[in-house]
């Protein structure tokens, strides 16, 4: 796939994928890096099918973020940090941000994939390489925790 072709497909998915990464990782700089890494990975090894592209970008971005979560890797300028603080502050003020913060990163990832990116549990399971039952159980635990937290936040 040519870069232009890939970039056009990718740009259609960026809004949801970036917001999903941001909500899961809680760190704007990390989310941006993860998004860029997913773009670069798609250039090198494009996904086989494009209908689930947001999910694919989200999963690849998360995997890259986990590998790159090293303090020096996200140091890319003071202006980025300042902007990041503002976004993190907003995330903390939003009800969803505070509820998602009650979850583990894995729970957040599955909740975002299923309820924000709109993937089915089977698609989520396939994408994350886990069993559908695990997706279902993890999401159920996450929702229980969110419901419990909803009365506090």
């Amino acid at each position, binding site marked *: 796939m040519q870069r232009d072709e890939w970039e056009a497909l990718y740009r259609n998915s960026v809004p949801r994928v970036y917001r999903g990464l941001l909500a899961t990782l809680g760190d704007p700089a990390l989310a941006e890096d993860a998004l860029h890494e997913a773009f670069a990975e798609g250039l090198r090894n494009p996904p086989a099918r494009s209908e689930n592209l947001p999910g694919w970008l989200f999963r690849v971005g998360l995997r890259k973020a986990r590998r790159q979560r090293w303090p020096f890797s996200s140091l890319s300028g003071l202006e980025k940090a300042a902007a990041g603080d503002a976004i993190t502050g907003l995330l903390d003020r939003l*009800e969803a941000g505070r509820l998602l913060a009650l979850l583990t990163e894995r729970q957040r990832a599955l909740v975002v994939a299923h309820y924000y990116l709109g993937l089915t549990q089977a698609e989520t399971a396939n994408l994350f390489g886990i069993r559908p039952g695990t997706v279902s159980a993890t999401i159920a635990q996450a929702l229980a925790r969110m419901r419990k937290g909803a009365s506090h936040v």
Partner: protein
Amino acid sequence: MSDDLERIVQRDLDRLPLLPPERWVPQPKRPSPLTPGWLRPLVLVPVTLMIALVAIAAGTQLADWRAQREPAAGRPAIGDPAGTPESRTPPRCADSVRPQSEITAAGLLPHEPRSPLLECVLIAERNSRVYRLTDGRSLKLFEYPGGLPVKPSASTPDQTGTRVIGGQSWSWLTINGQTVFSTTLSDRTYVDLSVPTGSDLNADLAILESIASTLRPSGLDCGTARMSNAGSPYDQALLDCVWAAYARGEAARLSITMVTTEGDPVPTTLLAVPGGRSIVIRDLTADNFSSPADRIVNTYSCTALTRRPWATDPKRYVFELSDCLGPALTATFP
């Protein structure tokens, strides 16, 4: 899912600001004015090594200084409240290939002897440790939180007796070629120390008595706290206590009990272990309003522990643990 939560997630995440479109794709990296890209590993590796060496040297000096200045601060020895200045955690035996984890699964800091009679640690796992004594024999330490269950004994001891060490009564016996010292401590932890019986029983008892007198928790207990609900503030000083100990290379324990909306307790314990696996144990068994399948004890065993400041109040923070084994790859505390 509850539609309300789904709606909240959809609504709020859509309100998150997007990056400017020019930042949607990575820009070609500009060469650093200070260091060309290809040189960075050459610079970073020696700098990292230098920092690590300086940190190790400084840590050793600090530990020596602390050992001389306050040998048993915050960790009174059982039977020897003052501790002994020369007592140190025994090092790992160079020829040991067995596990060296430092933490009991029950969420307690294990008790550890600091006697100069111990040459090194051969095995350290969960509730037991094996040390090599300076006379070449192995000493086994076994502990069981909550008191040892009564069990029928297949053998009858050859000899028995008691000793009082620092106000704590210990029983001793010889059985199956072993001399065993045992007691139940005030926190209901059963502990026993055993060595292969030598030619001189009195000498063995003296060795065990000397080692038992140096037994103490292997880290700092930063206490317990109770939060009225998930959003209420907790005492930051308790977290500071854990972080200060962790930063100076000492294990620390803290237990915080959260209370659900319905009033059920969710005790969560952190065992911060520098250089080892830190543990978070979250006990959901008393959460009676959760699904029965969720009423379990989740244990996360993680290699990295960092502080994550609150975005709304950077003076406060939570602990974030990563690279975990357990229900998730990461965990937070409290």
